[in-house]
């Protein structure tokens, strides 16, 4: 009885630790969900590993995208530490055991230890493994990939790469001493199996240690000023953090927009349908009907995807397409030297994948940006996309490499669309310097926003949904 209780406590601790590991890996797990997981384990027991796994996953993980993280960590925390090592001595006669001992002691120091483990079935203890992992740098590793690298290093330090040769020598020794071929083969079989088990144990130990170390470190975006760092100077790692942040931002923007729509939903009084609806009450106006207002904007996004604009364009596209449901209709075009429509790729796919796809497929161009030419193409090919209800957003730095800015086309765009809004990632002081035609464009825009960082970008997008 008492033992069962202790076992439960150990298991609960393990689950708590596992949840901390999940959180450190970026999965959001609430307290309520942790409690659900515990209760589910109580019901399900842990006898059946698959069921235990399913019950943990359905209580803790609420998004398909987090499944891989869960699977990886689950096998680390609850994997059972790989197969135990077997004892090769058991199958040998006393004489042969002596031979093996003698042959082993003839080998050199560090490698002798490894062969000892592999033949005796007495592997390194947990503490030894931990110590070895630390010496191989497990505490500096940050991700599963780095953990794999650490375990490879550990195997090398243990002498795994010379193992073949060592085993060859051992076999030669044993043959010289007169061990039978059959026994040697048996021995080799055990050593081989043990080698794999030991490698598994090491990988598991290192993975667990890395996951633990990671869960000790706080990793919070809100303390940093990443949101205010210019998008163009983000490192790849920072960009990745921000990409995760986009989803949280989108949720905020979406609920704001939904509330606004709900409050603003009452349009003008609609006498016609009020009379019709109240016929059944003998004309007494019980139900008052209002005209619905169409509040969702229909957007055309024209985005500069030249090399310098890429980070900004990426985040803009992510925001817009994560917000697809807040928009009546969105068509997107990308330009560098010329215009291309990218809406098709974007619809239907998950926003994040789609955006990555698009940026990958459009070749980067240096000093080739030409908005004038691109707009000419736009009017030739897709002028029907713009009518009095569309809001056009141009995302660009207004630098045309001294090509003609075609102010006339921007003017025409503004006249045909409901509104023309310009998002520029450059600081206002830089507008009009060098090859920037921004100051010439400004008079024809209804709104101009500076979008240097993610904070500004999300504010601008929010505003867009307000006004359109």
């Amino acid at each position: 009885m008492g033992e069962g209780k202790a076992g439960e406590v150990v298991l609960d601790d393990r689950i708590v630790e596992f949840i901390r590991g999940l959180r450190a890996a970026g999965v959001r797990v609430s307290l309520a969900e942790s409690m659900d997981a515990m209760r589910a384990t109580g019901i399900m027991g842990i006898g059946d590993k698959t069921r235990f796994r399913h019950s943990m996953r359905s209580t803790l993980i609420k998004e398909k995208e987090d499944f891989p993280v869960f699977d990886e960590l689950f096998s680390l925390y609850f994997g059972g530490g790989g197969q135990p090592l077997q004892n090769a001595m058991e199958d040998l006669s006393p004489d042969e055991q002596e031979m093996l001992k003698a042959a082993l002691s003839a080998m050199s120091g560090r490698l002798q230890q490894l062969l000892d483990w592999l033949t005796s079935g007495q592997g390194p203890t947990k503490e030894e493994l931990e110590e070895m992992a630390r010496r191989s740098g497990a505490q500096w590793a940050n991700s599963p990939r780095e953990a794999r690298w650490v375990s490879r290093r550990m195997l090398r330090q243990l002498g795994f790469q010379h193992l073949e040769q060592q085993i060859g020598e051992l076999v030669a020794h044993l043959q010289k001493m007169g061990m039978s071929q059959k026994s040697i083969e048996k021995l080799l079989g055990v050593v081989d199996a043990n080698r794999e088990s030991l490698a598994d144990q090491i990988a598991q130990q290192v993975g667990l240690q890395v996951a633990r170390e990671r869960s000790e470190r706080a990793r919070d975006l809100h303390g940093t000023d990443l949101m205010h760092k210019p998008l163009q100077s983000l490192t790849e790692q920072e960009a990745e953090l921000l990409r995760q942040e986009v989803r949280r931002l989108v949720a905020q923007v979406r609920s704001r927009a939904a509330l606004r729509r709900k409050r603003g939903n009452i349009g003008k009084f609609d006498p016609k349908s009020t009379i019709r609806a109240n016929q059944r009450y003998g004309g007494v106006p019980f139900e008052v009907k209002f005209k619905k207002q169409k509040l969702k904007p229909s957007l055309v996004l024209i985005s500069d995807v030249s090399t310098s604009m890429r980070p900004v364009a990426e985040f803009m596209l992510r925001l817009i397409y994560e917000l697809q449901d807040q928009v009546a209709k969105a068509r997107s075009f990308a330009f560098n030297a010329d215009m291309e429509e990218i809406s098709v790729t974007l619809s239907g796919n998950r926003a994040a994948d789609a955006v990555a796809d698009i940026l990958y497929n459009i070749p980067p161009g240096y000093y080739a940006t030409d908005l004038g030419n691109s707009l000419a193409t736009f009017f030739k090919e897709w002028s029907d996309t713009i009518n009095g209800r569309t809001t056009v957003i141009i995302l660009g730095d207004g630098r045309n490499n001294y090509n003609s800015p075609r102010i006339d086309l921007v003017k025409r765009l503004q006249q045909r669309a409901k509104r023309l809004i310009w998002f520029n990632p450059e600081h206002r002081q830089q507008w009009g310097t060098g090859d920037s035609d921004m100051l010439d464009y400004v008079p024809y825009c209804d709104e101009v926003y500076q979008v240097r960082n993610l904070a500004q970008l999300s504010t601008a997008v929010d505003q867009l949904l307000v006004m359109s």
Partner: protein
Amino acid sequence: MFRTISDVQEKLSSQQYIASEEISTVVYLAQDLCKPILTEGPAGVGKTELAKAWSGALGFPLIRLQCYEGLDESKALYEWEYAKQMLYTQLLRDTLRDVLSEAKSLTEATARLAQEEDVFFSDKFLLPRPLLQALLSEEPVVLLIDEIDRADVEFEAFLLEVLSDFQVSIPEIGTITAIHQPMVVLTSNNTRDLSEALKRRCLYLFVDYPSLDAELDIVRLKVPNLKPELAKQAVEVVQQLRHMDLRKVPSISETLDWARALVSLNADSIDEETMRNTLTVLLKYEADVQRARRLLGGNGGGQSRGGRLGR
């Protein structure tokens, strides 16, 4: 009620629903933890079917709430029956006159009328919509909230209250608590992210396209008069289509439609002509059909395709 996980599996399969180990585990847990299940996954993999099979397996009625943009409380929870209230006022006019005739002043008349107000806002005039039906039901029910991702964010927030306490308050009547806690299945096609709060309250079940063997089992179960050899071939084609870069890959429901089409066409084998005639059952976009024809037909017609698939 289900007793064990294998009991879940058996009873669901008696409803012609093949539940994987994971699905049965989650259903069992949902029942024991009294938590809603949120199922996500591509369209047509049997998310809605799960709720139907669940209700069938336990013999509980199924109450379904189909979500759409603009769905609000009056459509989901309850509505006052204005027309009935009006009708009753008209019919009871004489009685009302008697009640009010003794009143000496307007104030007194109003007070008397106010006393009777409860009559018109009682549950006689309450029109329960799916959510309230599920709470009021005398026997346990399975409540299916279908395509929650299509409803607005505000509705989702409202649903939270219902799902966490299984009670609602109606201003004129008071708080109504569920007689039996309903078993709730929410489905989502993942067209938008649901709120964290909602996800937190549910068990999560991702239903993906089935493996070849599982799908073959489903086809055999649901379309028993399709020849086994043909069923295998058909499922292999579908599985192959799913790996293509199509706008909308076929899901189980389309596989079943196709299987039924093959039966009614009396097809002997899936050759090029059958394929040409029936591909539109599987694929819903012209561009996809063209693409699939090109890729499947690229190996020189039906015979060799059959050979390639047969590996």
